[in-house]
């Protein structure tokens, strides 16, 4: 009897032990762990890290950890609170009242107040940031009735503004550090003071930038990481070696060739997390010079669009990172209902090559004795060898419809000068970010009021369609979301038909990461967010 009882007790004990042994590691594995140093490799080394003054990608990657914005965005690109706890928009859309978070302090200990918001928006971002005038141009004044309320008054309703208030676009800077100084020569430019989850620690030029945990961050218990280091390695193969060996935990998109990314993904300790770029809406495209013959004829432009196989480019040159683009308004905007393919001309139909040939014949460019209709030059985007490869494909694709393309490949400043300043080009490949709302980043390419000779990344194609202009202007002030969505659908249909640009791929700017890294991509801003939820498995 005693033996049986003892036996049962033992069995029960063993049972409990088994349960604990199974459950305990599971619960520990899922719990975030404090500590660790996350090392990210990115390129090129930035010129400045206070991203209120520059929209360069790497500047943004670093700056968004040091600064906060008024808002952040969820998976559908809808605003969620950050430094602004809540906000109300007046019925006429011309006043937005932000109630600011209390108890937030700057990295140097001083308190964050509405004066900082007023200063950052009006005196810094609107004046100095390349997208400042576009994002904040409608603001007439910002009232600060008390230290935690900022009332933004607009000249007219401007719904897109609410989509552009993250730390990526409008970081909040400390007034007490910058006011009254020469901003660009202020030492805080490259040793910034913000309210964000990480504090600036040091910058060894040519090597790395180091950020330390902000122990007084206003999000309780965050960030998890102790340190964040951005390493700059000049050679793409060396970057791949570094992440393969584990010296680096994350390699941002563009630092490693797509073919290498696919190889690295298969290794057991590496993976590619999905998402993290939707708030940028990046699109790879070819701009056509619509005021230069033969591209001034819409049929020629459409023919080129038909002649190019986007799926081929995506699979063979970019190894599947992205999806084929349909028009200027990408599918990432479908969360807000702004995207459509209804009634939009499709350039990927089965008989596209026949249509292309027919259009070129109709436009009057018949094939000569050698099969060539006319010659053109393609300026390849100066972003790496994969773009040159894409240029080679495009040359072959257009040769099939009788267009002889010569490839011109220059370094970045030469390309910028050629295409934007001298406007001496036929077709130029590049990529544009649309940002969280088409008015903020897409409009600039297709609005005739944005034709700015000499200034890059605006309306380079010189596209000018009065109907489309009217639509863009209506979208700027339309408050009703349904009506606004319909305006963008019309825009999509019109612009795709006019084809001033060949839209190639909606890019997936995914990063290669070590499997130890958890919660790297939690928002549509991805690596360009605060990374305060990120932690490292030991």
């Amino acid at each position: 009897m005693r033996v049986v009882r003892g036996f049962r007790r033992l069995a029960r004990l063993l049972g409990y032990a088994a349960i604990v042994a199974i459950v305990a590691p599971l619960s520990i594995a899922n719990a975030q762990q404090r500590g660790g140093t996350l090392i990210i490799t990115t390129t090129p080394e930035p010129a400045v890290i206070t991203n209120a003054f520059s929209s360069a990608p790497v500047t943004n990657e670093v700056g968004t950890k040091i600064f906060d914005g008024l808002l952040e965005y969820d998976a559908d690109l809808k605003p969620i609170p950050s430094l602004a706890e809540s906000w109300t928009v007046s019925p006429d859309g011309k006043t937005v009242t932000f109630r600011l978070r209390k108890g937030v302090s700057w990295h140097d200990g001083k308190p964050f107040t509405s004066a900082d918001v007023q200063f950052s928006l009006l005196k810094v971002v609107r004046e100095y940031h390349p997208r400042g005038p576009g994002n904040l141009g409608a603001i007439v004044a910002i009232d600060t009735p008390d230290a935690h309320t900022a009332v933004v008054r607009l000249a007219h309703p401007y719904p897109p503004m609410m989509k552009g208030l993250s730390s990526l676009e409008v970081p909040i800077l400390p007034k007490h550090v910058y006011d009254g100084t020469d901003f660009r020569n202020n030492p805080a430019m490259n040793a910034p003071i913000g309210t964000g989850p990480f504090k600036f620690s040091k910058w060894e030029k040519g090597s790395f930038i180091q950020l330390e945990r902000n122990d007084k961050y206003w999000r309780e218990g965050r960030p998890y990481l102790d340190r964040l280091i951005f390493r700059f390695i000049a050679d793409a193969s060396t970057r791949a070696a570094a992440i393969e060996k584990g010296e680096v935990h994350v390699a941002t998109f563009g630092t490693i060739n797509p073919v290498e990314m696919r190889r690295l993904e298969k290794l057991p300790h590496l993976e590619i997390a999905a998402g993290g770029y939707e708030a940028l809406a990046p699109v790879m495209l070819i701009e056509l010079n619509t005021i230069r013959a033969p591209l001034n004829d819409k049929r020629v432009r459409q023919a080129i669009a038909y002649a190019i196989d986007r799926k081929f480019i995506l699979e063979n040159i970019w190894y599947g990172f992205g999806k084929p683009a349909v028009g200027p308004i990408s599918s990432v905007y479908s969360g807000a209902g702004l995207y459509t393919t209804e009634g939009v001309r499709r350039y990927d139909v089965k008989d596209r090559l026949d249509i292309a040939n027919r259009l070129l014949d109709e436009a009057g460019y018949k094939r000569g004795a050698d099969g060539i209709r006319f010659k053109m030059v393609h300026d390849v985007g100066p972003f790496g060898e994969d773009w040159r490869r894409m240029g080679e494909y495009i040359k072959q694709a257009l040769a099939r419809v009788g267009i002889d393309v010569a490839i011109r490949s220059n370094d970045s400043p030469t390309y910028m000068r050629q295409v934007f300043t001298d406007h001496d080009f036929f077709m130029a490949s590049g990529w544009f970010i649309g940002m969280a709302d088409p008015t903020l980043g897409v409009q600039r390419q297709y609005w005739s009021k944005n034709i700015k000779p000499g200034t890059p990344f605006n309306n380079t194609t010189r596209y000018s369609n009065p109907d489309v202009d009217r639509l863009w202007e209506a979208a700027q002030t339309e408050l009703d979301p349904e009506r606004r969505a319909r305006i963008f659908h019309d825009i999509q249909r019109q612009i795709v038909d006019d084809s001033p640009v060949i839209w190639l791929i909606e890019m997936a700017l995914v990063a290669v990461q070590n499997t130890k890294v958890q919660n790297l991509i939690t928002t549509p801003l991805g690596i360009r967010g605060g990374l305060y939820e990120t932690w490292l498995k030991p």
Partner: protein
Amino acid sequence: MWKARARYIFGRLLHGVPIVLAIVVANFFLIRLAPGDAAQVLAGEAGAATEQYMQQIRSQFGLDRPLAVQFFSYMKNILVFDLGYSFRHGRTVASLILDRLGATALLMFVSMALSLGMGILLGTIAARRNRSSAAALIMLVAIVSYATPLFWVGLMLIILFSINLGWFPTSGMSTVGLDATGLAYALDVAYHLVLPAITLSFFYMALYTRLMRASMLETLRLDFVRTARAKGISERKIVRRHVIRNAILPVFTMAGVQVSGMLGGSVIVESVFGWPGLGLLAFEALFARDLNLLLGIFFLSSILVVITNALVDLAYTMIDPRIELARGRSNA
């Protein structure tokens, strides 16, 4: 004797001044031939721009001043060794260069020592054991090293020693986030220095090996060597005390050339190994159209070449007493 040498050096340096100035003037205008300016580069990196933005950058960088004004202002500064300001980096050119000078110097000297040491040793062996299989092997290695592109060698070394064997780090000058000081830091840097130094030494080692072998073979045929053998001195002593010293002169010249190329020559290795040196700085400065920085590096480079040439000529006279020191003119 030393007084004569000092006078010689001084004379050579004085001659160097107009050369360096001419180089600066020529470079000033040459690099402006490249299209595009720093404002366009920054706008290009920003992915967005307004006219206001471009204008702000141009006026801050002084790019909107007429060329003649920019030229005279630059020359005025250069004459007092003020290398100017790099607006892109927000620091003086001098501070940027000084920051990276140490890393470059370290890499260069270590790789030079390696390549000279190994080159002279292998060349001597190949000459002494001429027509043996050892010599053939050495020459084969030399030719292969000479012909193989540096970046490929570097990457292969990384794959073998870093990824597969895990003996050395893939890149960088020190372990990021380590914060070591003193001896620990020196050891960390040494650990990072191994692969880049070996890679960089390959090419010149091959060069010195072949030069040394050829030079030694020639010297071994000379009369005084035959006399020494006739006197009964051992072969080893002959080689050590007489032949090497005479054969080393061409190697010496080549070494002088290598030092002269020090400032810019290691772009590839610095790029592959992420070594923060001047070569990479100059390379990046070119693509960023950071003209002040680029000119500053060229200026320093040309000064270094002048000084090195003078020193090499001087060293010649010290090694080989037959070569005379001619004041103001090189005789070697």
